[in-house]
């Protein structure tokens, strides 16, 4: 069995375990798990950019915002999206976010490294400014309250049902992104991340590849936003504030860039500390900061790299033993 296939099976097993275990835990944990899964889609979209295309964005929350606000505005102003038309809202959310990413991408994708970080920050802040200022559309700083969760034959007000729905979206997103990164397109992205000049010489349109990745990431950010709006029931400029984008980036790095699933793990860890640990102690911020710093210092591959490091440690431990055995034989 190849390493890759082994990993896939582990992930599937983990997902199955989550699907079976979580609904039997407390309501609070189910809620946290739902939030983590919804946000993970955003983090995984960022991983697509960071871990595969090598583009670190500090403005990804903008796409979550577009998806979330669209959902909220359609639900409150036009009573749209609260029934069987929820599927349409999902599609619209992804489409609008992708459209925004297409516009922003034209400005941003020419930049690299630190400049890309800065321009995505600036663009993200523009979206925040719009959300804050465009009172008539977004409700300004009051935000928009969603009347209720969509009802299409199943009752999404039930936390467990909603958890399964979000879980379903998560699995589908993960599968699509996984297929994408293993496709030739995905592999080209990695090539561009590693050696862009070489890829250019080989004839690849590197800008186009990065641009498409940017748009796809935006689309999934929008999906995350649609789900997020219904998880919390309220959308406000807080969803698109700078620290949300920073959080997403940190979750990606925490989990392990380039692993996709790492994004979900990073999101789960951070959300756990922020929202669960904070109910137990008031010094949770130190734990959060400490975890980030330790992971960045000592685990360059994030938490997902732990099994690899253990395996390498074990291999190294075996090697000297093999040597001494060989020496003894001699």
């Amino acid at each position: 069995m190849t390493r890759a296939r082994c990993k896939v099976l582990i992930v599937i097993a983990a997902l199955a375990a989550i699907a079976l275990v979580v609904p039997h835990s407390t309501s609070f944990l189910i809620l946290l798990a739902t939030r983590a899964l919804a946000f993970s889609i955003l983090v995984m979209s960022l991983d697509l950019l960071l871990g595969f295309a090598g583009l670190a964005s500090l403005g990804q929350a903008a796409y979550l915002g577009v998806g979330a606000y669209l959902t909220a505005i359609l639900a409150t102003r036009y009573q749209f999206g609260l029934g069987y038309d929820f599927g349409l809202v999902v599609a619209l959310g992804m489409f609008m976010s992708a459209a925004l990413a297409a516009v922003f991408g034209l400005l941003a994708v020419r930049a690299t490294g630190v400049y890309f970080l800065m321009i995505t920050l600036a663009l993200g802040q523009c979206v925040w400014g719009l959300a804050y200022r465009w009172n008539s559309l977004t409700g300004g700083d009051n935000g928009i309250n969603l009347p209720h969760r969509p009802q299409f034959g199943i009752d999404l007000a039930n936390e467990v049902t909603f958890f399964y729905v979000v879980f379903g979206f998560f699995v589908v997103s993960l599968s699509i992104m996984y297929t994408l990164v293993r496709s030739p397109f995905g592999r080209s992205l990695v090539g561009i991340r590693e050696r862009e000049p070489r890829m250019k010489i080989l004839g690849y349109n590197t800008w186009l590849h990065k641009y498409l990745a940017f748009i796809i990431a935006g689309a999934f950010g929008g999906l995350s936003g649609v789900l997020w709006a219904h998880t919390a029931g309220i959308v406000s400029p807080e969803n698109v504030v700078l620290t949300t984008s920073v959080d997403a980036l940190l979750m990606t790095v925490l989990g392990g860039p380039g692993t996709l699933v790492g994004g979900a793990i990073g999101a789960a860890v951070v959300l756990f500390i922020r929202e669960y640990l904070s109910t137990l102690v008031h010094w949770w911020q130190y734990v959060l900061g400490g975890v980030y710093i330790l992971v960045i210092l000592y685990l360059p591959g994030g938490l997902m790299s732990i099994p690899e490091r253990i395996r390498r440690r074990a291999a190294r431990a075996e090697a000297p033993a093999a040597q001494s055995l060989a020496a003894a034989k001699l």
Partner: protein
Amino acid sequence: MTGKLARRLSRMPVAAALLLAMQLAPAAAQEALRIGVVAPVTGIFAQVGADMTNGFKMYLDQTNSTFAGTKVVPIIEDSQGKPDLAVTKARKLILEDHVQMLVGGVLATEGYALAPVSTAEKTVYISSVTAADDLTQRQLPNFPYFLRTSWTSSQPMHPFGQWACDQGYKKIAAIAADYAFGYESVGGFQKAFEDCGGKIIQKIWPPIGTKDFGPYIPTIKPDADAVFSLMVGPMALQFPKQLRDSGYTSPIVGGSVSYDESALPFMGDEVIGDVSAEQYSAALLTPANEAFVKTYRAKYGKVPSYFSESNYTTAMMIDDVMKETGGKWPGSQAFIAKLAALKVDAPRGPLSFDDMRNVVQNIYIKKVEKTMLFGYDKPELWDMVIKTYPAVSQFWTYGKDAFLKQPVYSRDFPACKYCE
């Protein structure tokens, strides 16, 4: 032998006591009253959260955490100033900790986020700070379990507008933080001020968090008799300083929180003489308030602001209801009915509720003075009360129905008819 006997004898009183306790216990044991407090403990509003929880806890300490014989268990959850986290924590409080009620919320977003949760979970939610007007106005029917013990943004601003007319001000330029709280404050002031003959000739909206008012101050219309300002937190510290530095000598009519005790102790002497209006002043010269301020300051090292007083009084009100029910939790509906029927004497003065479950209270016109109060040994800045408007409701003199017909105060309502 004696040892064993002695030990057996010594155990007897204990056993007897236990037996006695067991007889008494079933009758005396009441289910504890669990109160969920949602406040920002970390994040940029952490001080507000601290003031809120300190006020609440002070009342609990004074009553030994026992209301009418029932143990009170407060569970404080950190909303970090984020509305969706406030919702998450509120759900946790209700579903896991089985609280009978929620108290707290600071920002309008939190209020608008928590109120629907209270409806969905049929749990009482008492807003002890959130001032968003519409929660107890046009939106109230959506929130049957919601009650407000604090204020609405426009509540103190209506009498303030009247007061401004009485001072002889004819034209006022308004500069207020660009968010709903700012809009509602200016709106209330403008409505009352223009209804008694005044004119708001300008509205400037610096973004919330503005500290450099350099761009805005030179645009203030020179023919204004006074400037109405609504500044929050750090903005409140910088605006009067910069306004005066620019050579502006006309009076400042300072909204509600612009000179509130959460900012006043950190201001300089340039604010002496500035006037504001609010439902509380730490300088209220009543025995109840003096005791409250002195106890609070001794305990927490700072003069209490309305955040502290409001939560203290909320705890007091909950206690009063529990006294009525003999310590038994009467269920959400009955609790709300009883609470809304209360009349209390709080540190801020006499309180009751209107039929939209918002508090009816005195509004104080306050002027900043540097003086020594309550036996403290050095002169400090205090908001001295110069006029009291008693029993002001959220509708002022307009009558509920007429008031509710107009839209909620916003950036564009009331329209700036006299804007030059």
